[in-house]
């Protein structure tokens, strides 16, 4: 069924008010000494440019625990993870290991293992049986500093 809605509602005050404002000048004219710094404005710096060369492949994860404190990764830090990179020896990676996501240093020689950066923890050997996959390579750490 189609119903035609007849008549628009508009209050009298809307109808009465039909004045149009016309600007006196279309453009502003500056009449002073031009800023000497104007020619030197190039661009502003963008943190994304520094940390995220491959946006489509970049994910953020949040670190938990103290297994990487000697690498400067503390609990609560945001890690920038780039999936486009291929993990090589010595990279800090996000790994999926036995159904969990973990951040560790990848070592390929002499044996394949995941090394925590905390002397209190042992390295985790990766064998044929390990359910192991690289999620991505950690490229930056973002840490908000506490303020008093």
């Amino acid at each position, binding site marked *: *069924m*189609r*119903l*035609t*809605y*007849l*008549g*628009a*509602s*508009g*209050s009298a005050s*809307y*109808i009465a*008010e*039909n004045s149009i404002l016309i600007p006196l000048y279309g453009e502003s004219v500056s009449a002073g000494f031009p800023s000497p710094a104007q020619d030197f404005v190039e661009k502003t710096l963008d943190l994304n440019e520094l940390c995220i060369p*491959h*946006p*489509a*492949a970049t*994910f*953020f*994860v*949040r*670190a*938990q*625990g103290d*297994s990487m404190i000697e690498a400067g990764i503390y609990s609560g830090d*945001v*890690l920038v993870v780039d*999936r*486009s990179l291929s993990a090589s020896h010595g990279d800090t990676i*996000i790994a*999926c*290991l036995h*159904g*969990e*996501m*973990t*951040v560790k240093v990848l070592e390929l020689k002499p044996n394949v293992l995941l090394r925590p950066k905390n002397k209190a923890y042992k390295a985790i050997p990766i064998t044929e049986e390990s*359910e192991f*996959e690289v*999620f991505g390579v950690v490229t930056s750490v973002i840490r908000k500093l506490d303020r008093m």
Partner: protein
Amino acid sequence: MTTVFALVDCNNFYASCEQLFRPDLKNKPVVVLSNNDGCIVARSQEAKTLGLKMGVPMFQVQADIEKHNVVCFSSNYALYADMSNRVMTLLEQEAPQVEVYSIDEAFLDLSGVSAVEDLLSFGQAVKAKVDKWTGISVGIGIAPTKTLAKLANYAAKKYPATGSVVDLMRRDRQQRLLALTDVGEVWGVGRRLSKRLQEQGIYTALDLARTDPKRIRHEYSVVLERTVRELNGESCIALESVRPVKQQIICSRSFGHKITESRELREAISKYTYRAAEKLRAEQRLCRVMSVFIRTSPFIKNAPFYSKNLSVELPCPTDDTRDLLAVANSIFRRIWRPGFRYMKAGVILSDFYEPGSFQADLFSPVGSRRHAKGMMKVLDQINHSGIGHVFFAAQGVSPQWTMKRDYLSPRYTTCWQDLPRVS
């Protein structure tokens, strides 16, 4: 020059997005549910293997789900949209022209690529890149027409030996696949149509391809004739590189609990009206026809079913939430019947105009809404900024009817609080 199209399609997209951040769910049956956790709308390969079907209501398969420990998720649109954007951005880097066909599918125009590169290796390289960069695996079908590219993609999924990439440029390979494929698998041939075709002895895609196009046009439609031509390698459907403007905007939801009160239902409709108007403004269109529908659940036995839909033509196209709210409320007053337990409601905007492209009503008060555009813009800006939420009183102040989303996963990629945690 021969046209070359590729269809790139994400495998089990919603389920894959959920599994990507839950490595414990790799190789496990996972399903994603529709709005309000109603039906199954996506399944992991393992869930498919269990025989869970698309579109079945949750309560019908509850026993299977418990028996096989199937993990359920409510639809997490923020996550899926972000992952889709990543995939599409990559495809745009790889191909000269891309048409985003749906949230998980895109057509690429590869005409010209074959001159510099072997198409199969090109497809394999694109697949490998999308898989690695986004963690979403895709299938790719390459062919001289869109319809054949769809079919090639179907083969890429169906036959694992293909490695998920099929190059169907050669005619003999096309014919072989067409002969193996049911006519119902052809793009644009629905279930009803395939039944009718089968009654006429057209069982496979090859049977259809060998039917006289003129006869098809005469007996069926010009659309199916085009399909026949496309199956024979004649490209009739071009890439729509510019996203076509929507013809319709629909905002509808099922409710978390059944609504019996008119005030609650009216508030829900007002809220959808607001959302629809917001979308309309984002599309930079004005609409002239508005429909509102309300209905009870068809699944509840022994309860009376009520479903009503009413459309209104506005005197003048508009994108002003206030106009649309007034119309929605007047429609609602006409279709509301007490005594039912309402399960769903929605608004549909259609008949779109570009601003300034229609004849204004000579007798309507000119400039009556002189500041409407600015006001709506401010409203949208406030609501998109995350600073706050401004709404119309008609939407109600304490809605009770919000969606049921019991199994919602975190917004892993779009919310700082929801980032995946790693130890």
